[in-house]
């Protein structure tokens, strides 16, 4: 089972996304701020991180930057989620080291497509 780390501070969004992803057969780990996200990533080595960008303590951009500088976690793909549907926001996310980007509200089908694109096909 593929393991996804969802870093999201909004309780409803977290609950909804985690339940929907779980229904699709993913194992979900939760973090509610950037700092916790980094430590969970190090401990749990997820296959992918879905990162909200506006987070308390350490925001999503900074958390991604730190993850991408750390040898243990730099190989984990990060999918940025933000409410700002602006081209500039996408550039900012990619600059911080995110591997892809999607906007909220989440188009679930599109998000699933992006997740599948980012998780390397594991050897059978």
């Amino acid at each position, binding site marked *: 089972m593929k393991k996804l780390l969802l870093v999201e501070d909004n309780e*409803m*969004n977290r609950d*909804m996304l985690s339940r*929907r992803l779980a229904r699709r057969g993913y194992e979900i780990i939760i973090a509610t701020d950037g700092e916790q996200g980094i430590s969970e990533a190090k401990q749990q080595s997820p296959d992918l991180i879905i990162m909200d960008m506006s987070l308390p303590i350490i925001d999503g951009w900074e958390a991604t930057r730190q993850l991408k500088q750390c040898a243990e976690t730099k190989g984990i793909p990060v999918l940025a989620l933000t*409410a700002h549907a*602006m081209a500039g926001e996408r*550039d900012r996310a990619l600059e911080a080291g995110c591997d892809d980007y999607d906007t909220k*509200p*989440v188009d679930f089908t599109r998000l699933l497509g992006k997740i599948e694109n980012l998780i390397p096909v594991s050897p059978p």
Partner: protein
Amino acid sequence: MTPWTNLKNDVNTENSLTETNYRSIVEHAIEGIFQTTPDGHYLLANPALASIYGYASVEELKGNVKEIARQLYVDPARRTEFIRLMKEHDAVWGFESPIYRKDGSVIWISENVRVIRDDADKVLYYEGTVEDITQRKRTEEELRRAKTAAEEASRSKSQFLANMSHELRTPLNAIIGYSELLREEAGDLGQESFVSDLGKIQKAGKHLLELINGVLDIAKIEAGKMEIHLEAFDVAAMLSDVAATVSPVVEKKGNRFEVSAPASLGIMQTDLTKVRQCLFNLLGNAGKFTHEGLIRLEGERITENGVDWLLFRVRDSGVGMTPAQVAKVFEAFTQADASTTRKYGGTGLGLAITKEFSRMIGGDTLVESVLGRGSVFTLRIPAELSAKASQPSPTVTNTQPSVEEITLTSDQPLVLLIDDDVTIHDLIRRFLHKEGFRTVCAQSGMEGIDLARKLQPSIIVLDVMMPTMDGWSVLTRLKGDPEVANIPVVMLTMVDNKEMGFSLGVDDYMLKPIERSGFVSVLRKYCTPQGAPVVLVVEDDAVTRELMRSTLEKEEFIVVDACSGVEGLQKLITTKPAVILLDLMMPEMDGFQFAREVRSRPEWQDIPILVMTAKDITSEDRARLDGHVSRILQKGACSREELLAEISARITRATRITLTEPVTIS
């Protein structure tokens, strides 16, 4: 010899009745009339002046005010300034100062004054008129406050919208997401009635999201906060991608969807997100208004004057539109008509946004439609949008060559057009040249402000929706800059917000699409003083009037006409012409009386009057016109060239010596 002294001579030597008339004018005038000495006391004052200053009578005023500088002016330096201006120009017009009334209250006055000298050029006295402009000043102050309030409101609006963007989407996220989740779960549990109801919640949520996105886009465009991001991409791939995304929507009502996206379309460099959104909007729109028909998306690459363009056409065989509907289709918050919204849904914003987006990236969106047959929307985008064009040019120097290549004479009025849309530049430039205006175009607010300072145009035509700095900010800067604040500004925009415009100091407000004759007449209204001279033709015979008009217009004069003396006086109130051409024999008020009336008003005294008459002029007629008119020409005997030469001579003289031109009679 001035007209005034000339008149006084007439009074003394010829006609004592006239003296009574003049005395009556002074006594009963609404404006204050005075003569004062350079050291600041009154030689003459009329009752209106005493009343403006709060004195019961002229005698009381003259008896009390012995030193104007200290007793009247709130700021005694105004009198010094007044005397300095008098020395330099021999006259002041609209000299505005706060003044103490007798009871100590302060009012604002405006003075029109000139100097009277003796033969040795020594100043004898000043004479002129005073108007109480307190009410106007109060209104101006209110406008200034309204402007500040409007700016503040505009700032909070932008901030509010930025917050809204986040605050509205967050709960919607939950509504859409949970309804989707529950729908899936209900499906698993076989709860079919829940599935359909949850589907409705989800659909309504998505619709609300679309509305919010649309409103926010429009708001961002209006606030000049919409950014452009350039990237190079393959056009055919982009079209296939767009087609794949929208095909479920487009094909929903039993429509067939065809796409023509040949690989030969090549690469384009522009804002991908905006092009995609334009196409989504156009295709979504086609799908909405077509039932069991055909929708086609076609791409074409063309070269025009060495520039590559991509044309994207969205054709549908849907309901189509009437010409009246076509005219309004790109307006925000307007669908073809209100019932459309009920029948077809949608925000009514998609096409307005599409139009604005396409313009922001140097293109445009056009439409052709036949009611009942379908519509074709064409998105026309330059293949390459340079980074420079998408940003305001920092200096004027690199845009200098565009400052009029056309060889028009420099006394024609210069119109500065500030609009990010180059197609508008071209359109306006072409038809204004035909109308005798020079034009210079700026693509951004900063460039516009720089050009305004540098070129001091006769008028500025300003768009509202522009990237980086929107029209309101440009307007605020223009009106706050003393160098350019007095240049009239006309808004030309698709945003109907006249109140905002007027509170920020706009002189006129016009909506796109441009209605040519209205546009030109508005420009004429503001450009005439510096531009082509205006000739007022007062003539009761329609044929002669038209003949005069066509003759004069060929020579680039602007003609204002009146068919009687009364109408002539009315026209003078709004337009001060360079010359008046006057017929003598007219109903209502004849030329003799008209000329007298004109000369009785100080602000009209300097307008040369040329009499054109078929009447045999008797010496009595001559005497009646003496001092009032510049020249008498005989209709028929005077050739077209002579007439034009007479007019031209008056105009140059009038502009050279506005106030002290001697009035002679031939």
